[in-house]
């Protein structure tokens, strides 16, 4: 642990003033302070901002339907965005989120609980803003020949609303 801090300090001297180095130090400090607890492992609030006042986004505090469907599995927080720029809708899983490489099989199989939170948030946003979720099937296409790249892309697009940075 000591070496990590030293290495970070050396890098910071080399790149004095860069935000990168500062972040790096902060992260190694955090690691030094709480061994084993990575920044990723705590449950995150995932949030979308909708372009409507709270009274329209969640009339009488009523949750948009895709989020309501998640029931007790999530906590939900609805707050006005700064400067009246819409409403922030945030959701957080109550059960611990899967973390690290062990989460991969669940993500690929579409069983990761974060995925339904992301989909619900994205769908809520588009329902509130435009009233309908865009449908993409069926669409015209030519022959979908099977290739390794194609398989990968199919897997990615199948989880299109469930993955991403949200």
């Amino acid at each position, binding site marked *: 642990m000591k070496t990590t801090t030293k290495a970070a300090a050396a890098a910071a001297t080399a790149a004095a003033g860069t935000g990168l180095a500062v972040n790096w130090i902060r992260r190694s400090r955090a690691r030094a302070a709480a061994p084993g607890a990575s920044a990723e492992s705590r449950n995150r609030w995932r949030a979308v*901002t909708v*372009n409507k006042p709270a009274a329209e986004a969640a009339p009488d505090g009523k949750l948009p339907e895709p989020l309501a469907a998640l029931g007790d599995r999530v906590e939900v927080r609805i707050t006005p965005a700064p400067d009246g*720029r*819409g409403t922030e809708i945030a959701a957080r899983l109550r059960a611990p989120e899967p973390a690290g490489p062990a989460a991969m099989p669940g993500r690929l199989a579409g069983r990761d609980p974060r995925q339904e939170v992301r989909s619900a948030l*994205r769908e809520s*946003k*588009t329902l509130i*803003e*435009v009233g*309908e979720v*865009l*449908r*993409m*099937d*069926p*669409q*015209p*296409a*030519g*022959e*979908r*020949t099977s*290739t390794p*790249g*194609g398989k990968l*892309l*199919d897997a*990615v*697009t199948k*989880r*299109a*609303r*469930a*993955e*991403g*940075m*949200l």
Partner: protein
Amino acid sequence: MKALCWTGINKLAVETVPDPQILNAEDIIVKVRLSTTCGSDLHLLGGYIPAMRAGDILGHEFMGEVAEVGPAVRNHKAGDRVVVCSFVSCGRCWYCEQKLFSLCDNGNPNPAITEAMWGYAPGGCFGYSHAMGGYAGSHAEYIRVPYADQGAFAIPDEVEDMTALFASDAAATGWTGVDQIGVQAGDVVAVWGAGAVGQMAARAAILKGAERVMVIDRLPERLAQAADIIGADTINYASDSVAAELRERTGGRGPDICIEAVGMEADSTGPHYLYDQLKQQLRLETDRAIAVREAVHACRKGGGVFVLGVFGGLVDKFPLGAVMNKGLTLRGAQMHGHRYIPEILDGMARGEVTTSHLATHVLPLDQGPQGYRMFKNKEDGCVRAVFRPAG
């Protein structure tokens, strides 16, 4: 129906595919009359944007006739002649309200890919890979247009099909660059690339009152169009030093505004071209930013550089020092067409915006693969190959 599909890197085929359907209440189906190749397609065709799936229908710049309307459509009815913006935007999210339509939050049903690449997902675009939404493209007899009240525009009677076609994307892109970087009356503007996009950027700058506009390319037939039809001065980078010409022609100051309309496959006569090409082939950089570098270098102190050419990922040897020390404003965007198409159509109706000369090769859809070959290799003076899906 018939459609032109991407089937693999540098491979296209005309296939018989199912007709599109109305899937959302705000959709229309357009019977495509004209659909053009665009420089952006070349990046897809060559596999530089790796989110294409065999069978994807290409094409995003098109006009046609409304064939069917969804129950919530207010502004269009069957039979109307429309030009459709290449980007799909809802018109109601915060970005659309700011008139930054290509950043629409509700236009890309596939946000995960571009969020991973860029942090946040821009909107969607027809026929532009699964990264940009996975919408079926316009090189087909029919196309589904979501959010049709926002993205489809009635064409004034005085404007012919072939003129209106380019309001969809090329002209709207030029307008986006010139307006967003803030070209003002009296400015000296340099534009890299004399393709349809560069020519339209030059025209937009002239209409904004730029005092002198210079277009840079190496293809004489394109430079001739930029001079004769658009009304710009030209520089041939194959036979002249761009940096020295610009310095000489701007009283030693450099252009106030530099607009790059070349993109990630830029070429050059210098040795760095080989360097960039090698790195790109080895996937050590994804884009060749040759023209952007030159623009940043040539721009006057405190000037503006706008990147209209499409880039996908990482570039090498980017002159960040010049941006910082010269106090430049550097911006880029996919086109915010919804904002500019009405004004472009008006300009077309008044005869101020000429575009039909860009359609150097008009072909039936069956000749789609040949059309792309000509456009890609710039054969026979091809500026744009335009398809008529109805034959």
